């Protein structure tokens, strides 16, 4: 009894426990000190070597490379792979990649959903895999420059110059991308995942029941008033209890809410017409957006249970007629729902709606769009890597012509064939004999359908979308000037990043809470000014200052 009582004291400091439990810290510091030293000498050696070669262009690597050590490659195993394989090395993609490059790779994966936790544990342990696929921009506290300074990853400038002719050529042709994947200090740090076509950037948008619209004699809504009419008709004439619903608990959807965009704002940071960074959730547009949402909510046009909805509940509502309009991706939402609902209701059809506006005929100023480079799934070479040349050449493969085709389409004659110069997936992918859905069949052969260190090809998407309504989504959803307002992947300096995240944590919690209260009507919109004042008191000005400075540094890269 006594022992139990005392142990209560600190068992609750559970975080401290887990962190300390994973290896004696003395070792950790020693190794990290050693690796930093190694990194510095390595970097110095690189510089002299590169200096000697002066302007000499990197020599194209000959694949497969000659035999050498095995490399460790750490990455998340995406769900479409993990449903059939336990390791990327077991997939046809993984095997072929090793065979083609001649590099023996040991793939290491964190348990599903524990990417960040495992990353921290590996770092604390100090014994890093050679290559790590991670979002170094958003998920390393302090950003990529800090990761270099901490001695975790290597700056790649000289390495790319020497060993990576493919990536170098790509970056030379695409100066926009080149700017995105550097730090403010001009350091390259990763082999990036790049969406190589404008079509791949508009991934989320509004969709609604086309068959209901036809029944009701209504057009696809363009303005907010149209939407009000359509949703009301869905409710009154089609018996939809919750006409508009979406997966509210998924943050990705919240940040790209098309109805907020209609009022020239969003809930987070964007670039205003003055070229400065703005915070949408405290502006007038946001108040108007909330006013409309509160009205819709009180009229029963928005799902009353919206705040607790998860994806399976939304799917159920969208397929069984409880809801008629939603927001989501063309593949995992529109395609899946259509296929599921048509089994029992052949006339079921969804159609994409353009970003809504306030006046008819106006082109939307704001709309959902992604950066070609978001930081996600980008591979850095760690300071523990012994054979840097080999690692660099392995990664450079994907950015060349052959590697590009391999990462996006797989093996010619097996997963794709060239039809009139167009790489066409075979029936092995499109009508898998084992009955796998397209996304899972693809994941066995390529990385083109999710992410990774390569340039994604739009021709994958053109085939992945099988329905006409899906194929038109990039154009319909992309019909806005959203790109001008999109924040590029900027990073606060490592000193400011802690302060920035402290401020934004508090503000975001408050914003999320109040947004729902305003919408539900539990808090009157007369209080909006108080809400803005409270957010300002939490240090919004300072956060904007940090963001604007980061944007300036980005623009002068």
């Amino acid at each position: 009894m006594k022992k139990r009582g005392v142990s209560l004291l600190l068992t609750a400091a559970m975080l401290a426990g887990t962190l300390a439990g994973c290896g004696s810290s003395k070792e950790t510091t020693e190794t990290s000190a050693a690796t930093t030293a190694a990194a510095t000498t390595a970097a110095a050696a690189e510089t002299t070597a590169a200096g000697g070669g002066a302007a000499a262009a990197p020599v194209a690597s000959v694949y497969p490379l000659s035999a050498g050590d095995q490399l460790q490659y750490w990455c998340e195993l995406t769900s479409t792979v993990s449903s059939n394989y336990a390791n990327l090395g077991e997939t046809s993609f993984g095997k072929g990649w090793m065979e083609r490059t001649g590099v023996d790779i040991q793939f290491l994966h964190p348990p599903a959903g524990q990417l960040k936790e495992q990353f921290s544990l590996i770092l604390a342990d100090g014994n890093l895999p050679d290559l790590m696929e991670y979002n170094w921009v958003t998920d390393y506290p302090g950003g990529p420059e800090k990761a270099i300074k901490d001695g975790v990853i290597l700056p790649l400038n000289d390495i790319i110059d020497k060993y990576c002719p493919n990536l170098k050529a790509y970056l030379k042709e695409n100066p926009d991308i080149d700017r995105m994947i550097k730090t403010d200090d001009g350091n390259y740090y990763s082999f990036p995942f790049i969406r190589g076509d404008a079509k791949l950037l508009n991934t989320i948008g509004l969709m609604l029941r086309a068959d209901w619209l036809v029944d009701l004699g209504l057009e696809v809504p363009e303005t907010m008033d149209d939407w009000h009419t359509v949703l009301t008709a869905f409710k009154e004439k089609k018996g939809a209890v919750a006409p508009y619903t979406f997966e509210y608990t998924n943050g990705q959807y919240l940040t790209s809410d098309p109805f907020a965009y209609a009022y020239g704002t969003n809930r987070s940071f964007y670039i205003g017409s003055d070229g400065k960074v703005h915070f949408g959730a405290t502006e007038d547009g946001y108040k108007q957006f909330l006013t409309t949402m509160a009205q819709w909510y009180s009229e029963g046009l928005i799902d009353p249970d919206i705040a607790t909805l998860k994806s399976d509940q939304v799917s159920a509502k969208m397929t069984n007629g409880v809801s008629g309009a939603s927001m989501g991706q063309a593949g995992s939402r529109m395609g899946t729902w259509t296929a599921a609902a048509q089994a029992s209701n052949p006339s079921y059809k969804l159609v994409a709606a353009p970003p809504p506006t306030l006046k008819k005929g106006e082109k939307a100023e704001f709309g959902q769009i992604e950066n070609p480079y978001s930081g996600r799934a980008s591979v850095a070479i760690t300071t523990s890597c012994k054979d840097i040349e080999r690692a660099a050449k392995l990664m450079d493969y994907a950015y060349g012509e052959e590697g590009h085709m391999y990462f996006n389409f797989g093996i010619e004659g097996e997963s794709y064939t060239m039809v009139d110069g167009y790489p066409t997936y075979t029936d092995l992918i499109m009508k898998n004999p084992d009955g796998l859905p397209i996304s899972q069949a693809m994941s066995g052969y390529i990385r083109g359908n999710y992410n990774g260190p390569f340039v994604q090809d739009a021709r994958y998407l053109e085939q992945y979308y099988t329905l006409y309504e899906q194929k038109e989504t990039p154009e319909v959803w992309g019909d806005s000037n959203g790109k001008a307002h999109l924040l590029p992947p900027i990073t606060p300096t490592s000193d400011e990043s802690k302060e920035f995240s402290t401020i934004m944590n508090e503000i975001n919690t408050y914003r999320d809470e109040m947004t729902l209260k305003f919408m539900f009507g539990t808090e009157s919109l007369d209080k909006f000014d108080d809400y803005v004042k409270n957010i300002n008191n939490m240090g919004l000005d300072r956060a904007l200052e940090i963001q604007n400075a980061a944007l300036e540094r980005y623009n002068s890269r």
Partner: protein
Amino acid sequence: MKLSYQIKKDWKRNRSLYFIMIPVLIFYILFHYKPMYGAIIAFKEYSPALGVTGSPWVGFANFTRFFKSVYFIRLIRNTILLSVYNLILGFPAPIILALLLNEVRNKKFKSITQTVTYLPHFISLIVVTGMLTDFSMTTGLFNDVITMFGGKSSPLLQDPKLYRSIYVLSSIWQEVGWGSIIYLSALAGVDSQLYEAAQIDGAGKWKQLIHVTLPAIAPVIVIMFILKMGSLMNMGYEKTILLYNPSTYETADIISSYIYRIGLLEQDWSYSTAIGLFNSAINFGLLLFTNRMSKRYSETSLW
């Protein structure tokens, strides 16, 4: 002199017992004492790349940051209120159930009731909260019942006023049967002669309960109470993060769920360790306080 002699004697006599104790001792050292060392990152600016010893000291900066946070008061209030409700309503519930079951004479009914009340304890928390979420929706079971009695259906889990009731009542439902086991075993140990004596003295059922049963199981109740007090502020984050949403933060957000959001999701380890340490310190204080009170008034205590 005397002490060393005693130790020697004790060692000789109980050697095998000491050997049996070794694994337990190792367990506590490895999993409960060694981790305490990691708590020092509460006073540091921890970076995994630099390690625990390599990270720079920052003194009490992480603690002051928490005390100055706009959510500090709210988090403390929510944690305490939720715990106190859990204690006031949740602590007596298994005792009452045990006393009631003790009076039941029909063996079959008794064992069925016991099994039925134990069962929810074995349902995974994820499933329980999933059920609660579904039942609380406007089209869910709870609302069906409400409308059956003429009420109006509403999204229950989006109402901050109802959150605590849902949380506490569901906890009681899940744990009441399991919690009653220890009291039932205590009740089984009460000497039946005492009841006979009480009956002869003319005590009815109620008097027997007050003067025989309760005093007999009082030590168990007190020990359980002290243990509960020691973990009063120690509300787990799992149930909270599965049940809450931004619209109920006002009453739902507690210290541990805040630690989860900031520490694990935002990777702010030092800050969350500082909050955790602060939380543990309060718990320890509460434990000491209750223990002393109990010693003074009931002569039962942990040490």
